[in-house]
């Protein structure tokens, strides 16, 4: 580059940099206003969860609505303690974690095995199954929740403890995950498997010792989406699980239990907000910790079309 072009920006009177600065300022002002619109409701939720009924009533209509009540941290602590221990949220949260954990394990095992078979093995009838998989992904299935309910009820009977299976089993099968696993496994070179087979491993051994360790990214993506799905599911558990707990350990997961908690007599707005915050924390942590896998999920979800 010669000297002339290098110096070119300086020939212009300061017009361009100023215009650039103005642009920058406008960008930030617009960005801050937009961001506020998006996070004010969340700030309100966080702030209110630290307040007692009096402080909340006083804050309404002022900017204090969006600011935590730092002068009375005792009340904030009290709110969270009441919700967690007094209203049993920790039990519901534990249920959610348990359901999600079991679903993740079964989901990966069942769909992973099926995906492996579809990707690597040759057997008669494979073309029919491939067609069925694509067909079931394309058809919107969600409208069949009522028949699913009647099937599960008849299958599991009316015993309360059995209804937990009604939450876990339907969530453990995902045709889309079979499709994802198939796509991923197809790209694993044959050489890896052949090496293991020469060492005397059978098909199941190859799957667990060779394929699984090579598939950590897809396993993580499936696990993360499974967790978010089970944790956030509201409707299905509310249909299938008994809501009254009468002294025994409750079976509801946390999202569904929110309805029960809302209707507790004498619950304060602060406590309601605290329960909402607690419900959101695990998903928040998941998004922060598993960003990479969630973005990968976008990449794979593009395949869906």
């Amino acid at each position: 580059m010669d000297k002339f072009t290098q110096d070119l920006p300086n020939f212009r009177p300061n017009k361009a940099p100023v215009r650039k600065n103005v642009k920058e300022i406008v960008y930030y002002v617009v960005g801050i206003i937009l961001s506020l619109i998006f996070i004010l409701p969340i700030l309100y939720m966080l702030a209110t969860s630290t307040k007692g009924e009096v402080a909340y009533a006083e804050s309404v209509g002022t900017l204090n609505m969006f600011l935590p009540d730092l002068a009375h941290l005792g009340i904030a602590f009290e709110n969270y303690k009441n919700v967690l221990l007094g209203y049993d949220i920790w039990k519901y949260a534990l249920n959610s974690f348990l359901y999600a954990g079991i679903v993740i394990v079964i989901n990966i095992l069942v769909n992973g095995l099926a995906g492996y078979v579809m990707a690597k093995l040759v057997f008669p009838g494979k073309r029919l199954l491939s067609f069925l998989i694509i067909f079931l992904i394309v058809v919107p299935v969600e409208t069949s929740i009522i028949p699913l309910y009647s099937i599960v009820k008849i299958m599991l009977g009316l015993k309360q403890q059995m209804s937990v299976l009604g939450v876990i089993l339907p969530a453990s099968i995902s045709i889309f995950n079979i499709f994802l696993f198939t796509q991923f496994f197809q790209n694993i070179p044959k050489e890896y498997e052949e090496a293991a087979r020469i060492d005397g491993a059978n098909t199941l051994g190859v799957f667990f010792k060779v394929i699984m360790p090579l598939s950590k990214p897809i396993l993580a993506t499936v696990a993360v989406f499974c967790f978010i799905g089970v944790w956030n599911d509201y409707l299905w558990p509310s249909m299938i699980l008994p809501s009254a707990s009468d002294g025994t350990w409750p079976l509801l997961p946390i999202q569904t239990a929110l309805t029960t908690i809302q209707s507790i007599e004498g619950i304060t707005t602060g406590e309601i907000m605290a329960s909402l915050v607690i419900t959101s924390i695990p998903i928040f942590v998941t998004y922060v910790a598993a960003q990479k896998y969630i973005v990968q999920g976008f990449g794979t979800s593009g395949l869906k079309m």
Partner: protein
Amino acid sequence: MIDTSILILGLFLLAFGGFAVYDLATAKRRREVYRVKSTVTAYLMLLPAVLLAFLFVLLPILYSLGYAFTDYYLLKPNDISFVKLENFVEIIEEISEKGMLYNAIKNTLTFVIGVVPLQIGLALLLALFVNRPCFGSKIFKVCFFAPVVISLSVTSFLWLQILAPGEGGLLNSLLGMFGIPPHDWLRDPETAMPCIIVLSAWQGCGYQMLIFLSGLSNIRKDLYEAASLDGASRWHQFWNVTWVGLRSTFVYILITVFIGACRILTQPMLMTGYMSHTVTLSYYMYNSGYTKRLVGESSAVALLMTIFIGGITLIQRRLFREK
């Protein structure tokens, strides 16, 4: 019902066996070699997935097709009879009498027509807004994405407080600062659906923003340089480079947001209950199938809804197909 399930399983196995035999018969022509051992292993490894998929995916779809033509009442599973098109006649009657189903269709259409452009438009604008390398854009991105982290039920309960009637509600108190009198947002038929549209778009658009961003990152930078060398204006650059590059991302987002919007249920269920001005199709189906236990009628509505969603999705794909 158990008999029917076993019958369907038998038919399914028969069909599968038929295809397997066909595969075996044509193996030579397709130069495929089937080994007994690998076939047995494959079937055994597929068994759990096939069993679960049969019970919880295939069977519900088939049943919802079948139930639509019966008078199945959930509490009397053994007393079920074929009623031909009676359920559909009832549906047409209820729509023409402007009953609850009419409202459900009206509200669902309102929601879909409102939320799909709003959510996708917002997501695209926000993605374009944060798609520049500077420190602030990362913080803005996190802020726009934040509502996605809170689930639909938490969102519903949170906005229930925000939209609370009287002067104690957050929105009312904010508007009060400008001298606007308090309003009962969710009970007023004029404002209830718009409120639900806005809060749904608020909750969801951060997710589509991220998908748009990953689409934007796949567009080659030199295309913009080439375009600006050719003297293309910003608008032309957007239209001919960005939009073309985002086309397949857009179709994917359009279809997923559309299907999700058609299924709206949680928000009206938790925020207003079963009311004529907020009832939606999914809510109507849930109410008639689960609360009233009239599975037959519910399945008939489900069948019509599946046809509607499938049809519109096909049209969308046709319209926006890659050229």
